[in-house]
């Protein structure tokens, strides 16, 4: 299984690093078929490179011995993977029903005004991508948003704005 992971000669910019390739190889060992590690590999690669661009998908396809188009199909099926670069910070506001009952939608609207962009867009300086999100399992602590990996719960509008302003 590991032999499929041929480290490239020189890591060009935007290429999957040797360290990540090694971790992917380790993940593959955990599954009866190496493709089981694909989602984890996508997470790892996106954490490293910021997105799964078509050329990255081609690299992954080589590692997993699949076709690049299959990798891209998987990327586009899941909400968390992106084929194009995003802002430095991803801010996801939950607008599903329970959060909306406690102000989730108005929080999103106020943050759109604050940042001058609509949900789904990135600020011109590339600082923040604002997104609307489906239920994140924090319904009792609404309104809430997620920045990268971190949940921020029971947020007032002013507090949320401050939080966004503090992002580099």
């Amino acid at each position, binding site marked *: 299984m590991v032999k499929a992971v041929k480290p490239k000669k020189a890591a060009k910019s935007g290429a999957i690093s040797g360290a990540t390739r090694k971790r992917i190889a380790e993940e593959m060992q955990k599954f009866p078929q190496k493709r089981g590690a694909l989602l984890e590999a996508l*997470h790892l690669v996106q954490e490293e490179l910021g997105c799964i661009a078509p050329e990255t998908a081609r690299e992954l396809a080589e590692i997993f011995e699949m076709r690049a188009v299959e990798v891209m199909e998987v990327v586009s099926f899941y909400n968390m993977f992106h084929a194009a670069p995003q802002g430095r910070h991803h801010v996801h506001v939950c607008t599903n*029903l329970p959060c909306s*009952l406690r102000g989730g939608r108005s929080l999103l609207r106020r943050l759109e005004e604050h940042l001058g962009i609509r949900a789904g867009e990135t600020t011109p300086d590339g600082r923040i991508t604002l997104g609307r999100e489906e239920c994140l399992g924090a319904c009792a602590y609404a309104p809430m948003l997620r920045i990268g990996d971190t949940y921020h719960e029971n947020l007032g509008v002013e507090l949320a704005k401050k939080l966004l302003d503090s992002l580099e």
Partner: protein
Amino acid sequence: MGLKVPHTTNYLTEHFGDDGFVSLKGYEAQGGYEAARKALTRMQPEKLIELVKDSGLQGRGGAGFPTGLKWSFMPKDEDRPRFLVCNADESEPGSFKDRILLERGPHQLIEGILIAAWAVGAEKTFLYIRGEYSEPARVMQQAIAEAGESGYLGQGAMGTNFSHEVVLVRGGGAYICGEETGLLESLEGKKGQPRKKPPYPAEFGAFGMPTTVNNVETFCHVPHIVRRGAEWFRGIGTEKSPGTTIFGVSGHVVRPGLYELPLGTSLEQIVFGHAGGVPGGREIKGVIPGGMSMPILPAAELDVPMANESLRERQTMLGTGGIMVMDDTTCMVRVGCVIAHFFRDESCGQCTQCREGTGWMEKILNRIERGAGEEGDLEILLDVSAKMEGATICAFADAAAWPIQGLLRHFRDDFEMHLRHHRCPFHEGFRL
């Protein structure tokens, strides 16, 4: 996370206020892993399956399938590798109980998994956790490592010749991967599109091998049943739905949060007694009792005991126990729009009825909400939703149709007012 400790039986969450409980030491101090030791060293797998059958435990992932019976479906006398899957994809809007079970009681879950693995003869568990749950994943990863170092997992668990390994898998953010065969596809590194059944997972599951899929909470009940017996378990809850569950209360209540209570506790008791009722002296308009896929109940029906048998009589279901409370300022057409949008967005697109039906429902509801609804729209809505039921590869289409049917059943007035006045009559106190 603000867990409220309930006043009655709460064996699952009893120690969740104690930070030490997350560690192996803290868990052992409360008798942790004794049930697994008992099961692995003194109980034959068949005996264990009988015990779980006798307990009457029903799956807590939404469908309420009897757990012991599901375990008994695993093929006997076969030497293919077998797997267990722990469904920690929790994405049903209104549900957030699995998150706390993962974050606050990781070893309780691992112990439940280990016992189940012994019962069905599984060598490996894939713990499939939704990608957004970074903190629960971190806690679980650490607990899995600890359990491995202490000889609970891995080669020769607890001095027996049984070996079990738990592999954590992060999802990619797709609601449909909570459906068990969508999950299996995702686990194999594919798009999470549900499989046609049969074959069922017990025959053809993860990587084509015999597999049992259970929800996080389902596993967590198991050590308690092994430790205290089937009779003890049946003494809690109702005759047909024994045990407790963790209700998640959200929406217009004073104290939203998680409440572990016996099944059969009345919805009224949960909403008023535990969650403190509606703030601001307002009245309740409707309550969704079991996560967003389940039909709503009007205020007049809050006396219903929260168990599947009694909820079915009211044309709804317990689902995942996610209770959403809506006060009298809530526009039920708007609620329908939010629900329909979610299902349209998350349909995996394999079945025409589901792909097209969810789109139609959203379009018609949005048009009614905007005041541009037309005569006959409600009939079309009901017709589309009826065609989605029972006609697709997975139950997602039913889950999309039911809540809209429920809104029309109980709040048809709201819809007709929109049609009559060509606008939403709920601007005052409009909170959606």
